[in-house]
């Protein structure tokens, strides 16, 4: 007997993502899914952002990590709420992991939830976490052809941060080329050049957060 199925393989995840989206919408929380390759600086960006915007917003972080809780401890040191998900080798976060992690957070009155995905430019892009926007980090110590090599992630991202711009004089990274690839993949993408070390270029990113948060607020 042949049974026509026509069911999306990721429907279970998408259903959970829908639940998450409703939870966040009901509370007016802006939820962001941060993705990058390992070492691009997601945790540094979070440390900086959490400290600099602490007077304005109540923020929390869900940290996805393969094994350790180092990143969660760095984030918690800023005073923000942080909860760690160990994927034990898993290459991405999924909706049920986020729902589990949220049970450990006090989300009432929260303004912004950051989800730091596992460092990997391929798999995380496939899984909806109910976020308002995907944010990609690319550091200038990586190749400027990364967006071309990993198109889906940049195609789906609302924002891409080019990190470590203070190192530009020492590396062979063409900002225009990288940005050109990103725009070709996604003409609506917003690109910021930043340095989480020096703080250069972070203000436009903060303004973007403020605008998106204001738009989300009930």
């Amino acid at each position: 007997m042949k049974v026509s199925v026509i069911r999306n393989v990721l429907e279970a995840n998408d259903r959970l993502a829908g639940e998450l989206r409703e939870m966040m919408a009901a509370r007016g929380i802006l939820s962001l899914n941060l993705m990058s390759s390992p070492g691009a600086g997601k945790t540094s960006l979070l440390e900086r952002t959490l400290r600099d915007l602490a007077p304005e917003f109540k923020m929390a972080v869900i940290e996805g990590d393969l094994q350790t809780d180092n990143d969660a401890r760095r984030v918690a040191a800023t005073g923000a709420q942080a909860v760690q998900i160990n994927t034990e080798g898993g290459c991405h976060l999924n909706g049920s992991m986020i729902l589990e992690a949220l049970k450990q957070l006090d989300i009432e009155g929260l303004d912004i939830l950051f989800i730091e995905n596992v460092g990997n430019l391929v798999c995380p892009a496939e899984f909806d976490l109910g976020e308002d926007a995907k944010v990609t980090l690319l550091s200038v110590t990586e190749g400027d052809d990364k967006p071309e090599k990993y198109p889906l992630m940049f195609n789906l991202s609302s924002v891409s941060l080019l990190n470590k711009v203070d190192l530009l004089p020492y590396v062979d990274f063409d900002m225009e080329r990288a940005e050109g690839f990103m725009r070709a993949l996604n003409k609506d993408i917003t690109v910021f050049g930043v340095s989480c070390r020096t703080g250069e270029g972070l203000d436009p990113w903060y303004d973007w957060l403020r605008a998106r948060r204001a738009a989300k607020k009930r």
Partner: protein
Amino acid sequence: MHEMSIAQSILDIVQQEMEKNGLTRLIRVKVKFGRLTNTVPEALDTGFMALTAQTPLESAVFELEEIPARYRCFKCAAEFTPEGTNRLLVPCTACGEEFGHAVLSGKELYIDFIEAE
């Protein structure tokens, strides 16, 4: 390697469909995946085999079919399928524009049908 979680999701749906239709022996499952989903067919195949080994589903044929990418040009609105590449950055076949094409297909990932008794 997200193929393992995809294989698990496929298996979950297959089992639901079999139960719903009162079927116990799986003969074939057909999955269609878009070219842009980053799916590595060999990895997915291996994942499905690993999950069904020594279960009643073990002998089933796992069939994968790729759906090509199809774009609509940002500039002239021509629709085209890039040949021999899964790149999103390809010149429009009508006007040559490389930027900002809309993706019409290539992101699908679904179970088409199962054959079972």
